[in-house]
């Protein structure tokens, strides 16, 4: 099949690619660019697990052809923080190894807080952890990207607006409650112009300070 040359910006980096025309953005991101945070849950735009931000809008990447994204900017969850791709099948939990030694920043029990260290996470990511919004984690990247698109456009959403924004993201584990709270708290954190989580009253956890 004839290949097409396209160019797009993915997580801030420009890529020149030769692809076949039927290649979806989902497959391009996962199979060609190794961005496996973008998940396939249904292949029909129903579940939202493949949500990415395309020129500022949250879209189901399984329903976007790569050619439709030419000249545009795509952001996935890997674009929110520096990325560690060291896990292998023999050591699928290298991410656990890399997080060892870090005390929880989010537990209200004082004994569990260690010295303050600037976090490498986006406030949405921190808030998802701090508010118990992650269980199996499969819907999480898509949820975070839907939330990112929402907060970029509407920095002060109420719970109804948040629910509307994630209404296309299915979750079978959480019942959505803690996800909505996490997004709400992340919005407050971003509003205070503290892109990095700070402990105490300005943390993104919703604990101490405003609830």
């Amino acid at each position, binding site marked *: 099949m004839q290949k097409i040359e396209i160019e797009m910006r993915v997580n801030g980096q420009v890529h020149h690619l030769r692809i076949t025309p039927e290649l979806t953005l989902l497959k391009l991101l996962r199979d060609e660019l190794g961005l496996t945070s973008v998940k396939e*849950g249904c292949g029909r735009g129903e579940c939202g697990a493949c949500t990415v931000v395309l020129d500022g809008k949250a879209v189901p990447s399984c329903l976007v052809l790569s050619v439709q994204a030419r000249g545009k900017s795509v952001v996935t969850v890997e674009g929110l923080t520096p990325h560690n791709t060291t896990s292998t*099948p023999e050591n699928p*939990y290298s991410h*656990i190894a890399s997080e060892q030694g870090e005390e929880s920043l989010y537990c209200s029990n004082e004994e569990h807080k260690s010295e303050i260290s600037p976090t490498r996470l986006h406030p949405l990511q921190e808030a998802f952890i701090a508010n*118990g919004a*992650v269980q199996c*984690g499969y819907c999480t990247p898509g949820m975070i990207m839907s939330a990112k698109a929402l907060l970029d456009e509407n920095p002060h959403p109420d719970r109804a607006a948040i629910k509307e924004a994630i209404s296309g993201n299915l979750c079978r584990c959480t019942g959505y409650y*803690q996800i909505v709270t996490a997004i709400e708290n992340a919005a407050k954190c971003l509003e205070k112009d503290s892109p990095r989580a700070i402990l105490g009253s300005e943390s993104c956890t919703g604990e101490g300070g405003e609830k």
Partner: protein
Amino acid sequence: MTSRIVGCSVPRVDGVAKVKGEAKYPGDWYLPHMLYAKVLWSQYPHARLVEIDTSRAENALGVVRVLTHRDVPNNEFGIAEFDQHVLAEDVVRWVGEPVALVVAESESAAQTACELIDVLYEPLPVIDDPIVAMDDSTLLIHPERGSNTVGRNRVERGDVFKALRTAEVVIEGQYRTPHVEHAFLQPEAGLAYIDNEGRVTVIVGAQWPHDDVRQIAHALGLPRDKVREIVPAVGGAFGGREDISLQILVALASWKTGRPVKLVWSREESIRGHGKRHPFRMQYRWGATRGRIVVADISIVADAGPYTSTTRMVLDAATAMAAGPYKIPNVRIDAVAVYTNNPVGMAMRGFGAPQVAVASEQIVDKLAIAQGIDPVQFRLDNLIDDGSTLPTGSPGPRGVGIKEALLKAAVAGGWKRQGQHLLKPARRKLEDGRYWGIGIACCFKNVGYRAIHADQSTATVELSLDKAGNITNVHIAIGASEVGMGVHTVLTQLAAETLGIAVSKVHLHPIDTGKVPDAGSCSASRQTYVSGNAVVRACREALKQARRSVSGTIGKEREKNRRTTKVELTYRVDTGDITSMSEAEMHFAYRSYGYCAQVAEVAVDSSTGQVEVLRIVSAQDVGRAINPAMIEGQVGGSVQMGLGFALMEELIVSQGVVNTNNLTEYIMPTALDMPELTTIIVETPDLFGPYGAKGMGEMPTLPTAPAIMSAIRDAIGVEVYELPAKAEYVWRHVRRKGMV
């Protein structure tokens, strides 16, 4: 003893990786020289497989192998008995049966080649009604068995016939629940390869990796130590990953080609290829006299699909929970599971209990109403206490917190106390014209396997100590899969608490059957309880040994900077005094239970039949809350499933064919469908659980549907007998009542 870590909402140990998108699920690896496989599914729900011709497919572009039953050394598998074929042979019995596997250089080449396989079927009559199939000896799913019955449980206590005749009030009802789809977000995916030690290694989402290895090894005719399963991050399970799905297929493909093979199911294949919650048809007839339930007469027919899976255990759990957590002297239960050509009935959160709760809690409500007693008060007067005999005759457990859970849910849900009495909030009409109603339900569910069944988990704990004897590091190996429920975080907390160290010093080994011991299945809400105890005890033993060696060798060890102590310990759930029970009493006895009560508020639109759930209050006795935030998360997810079960989830199966095989047509609750939720944690310690904890993963999904059904009756007087209570159903019954 005050806890520093148990009871604290410590953030998940796998949380950072998941929010960063770094957590790898089985479909996320791309190995060099990797091949792709695709399944050719059975075209018929019931047919003789006359001939398979793979020649055209084998010659197709990019195809490396096409596998059929002829390529499988022992073409059989199954979690309880080996009654399923890895690849179809002689007869296909449901549409989820794999007939052939194409292995090719690309996914599209494999897909194209599937369509080039020529299969000659001889369609057979489809058996899709379990009640008809039950008595039919002419049309048998498995002719060699002589009947379509998978199993039958009969309980008979007291004098049911007499009790029904003499009871003051008798209420009867026939209830029906559908096939329910797990709908975990991650469709099945697996990657198999031959590792450096020549072991067939499968990366897959699984609830019991060690048992998978048993089945893979048997099918491939390999010794168990030549097969290995690795469980990375898993996108949900809910019972749907307890049975083998694609493990043997992908292992076979890699073993035959010598190359890594990846197999990923689409959502349609996922819905098609794994079993469902058993549909139940239930007939309940109960009687009460002066506020006491005196008799329960229950008949259950479960649709098991064509293969056994865990159906007998589901039937046992359904039997044990069928009459609810009540003291009832006269009980008759007849529960039968029947083979059909519908999707295989398999484990799904609740394991038989959600279905029976739908029936039992409606009958309890109606008995209360018929006697003019408040539904909460009636329940309080009949619920079990510590040591009560259960309806099946089994001895009840201790540490029963159901009354507290019920009361707390009721009060938080709006029930008022008036002196000695409880007053239910009155139904009313809302400003927008809808009818408001409130309902309540309470349920119990076993934690762990039946008492006569060995229930155990093995943990290896390795402590590293510095010169002074302080623990610097703890490494734990235990085969409990993290499928999203949070077991790895719970085990980490339990270890840290027991050893008196920070959570960050505890490391759980990746789930790899080559390196971690068997923890049993992630099912029956048992991992916190059984694996939790294994970890706690192993840690205590390791501490003891470490202290002993410090005092004994302190002189010799001074030069060394580091020392390790390693302990492997198997915790077996104590069967206690069950040997003194009769066979009947023993059969349905479990070691521990969890309890949950929920209140549901609904608004019903009488002109459309649409039901909106406004609020749910959920109170669960968890024994001891190890991680409150994670418990709240589990309750949220349970309520989502319970609400879907009640109002919208309907897998439409006609003549054995699944019509709703994607998420457009199989509707489950979104963020917009969820009601306001209040979660109340009750802690009545379990005598045997780690720090008093019980299991809790299934319990909160049981009362949701019955509470909603109860609220619908309260709002507009419509009895729901069949789930889901779709708008059409409610509307039709509203019209009949002339309420439009």
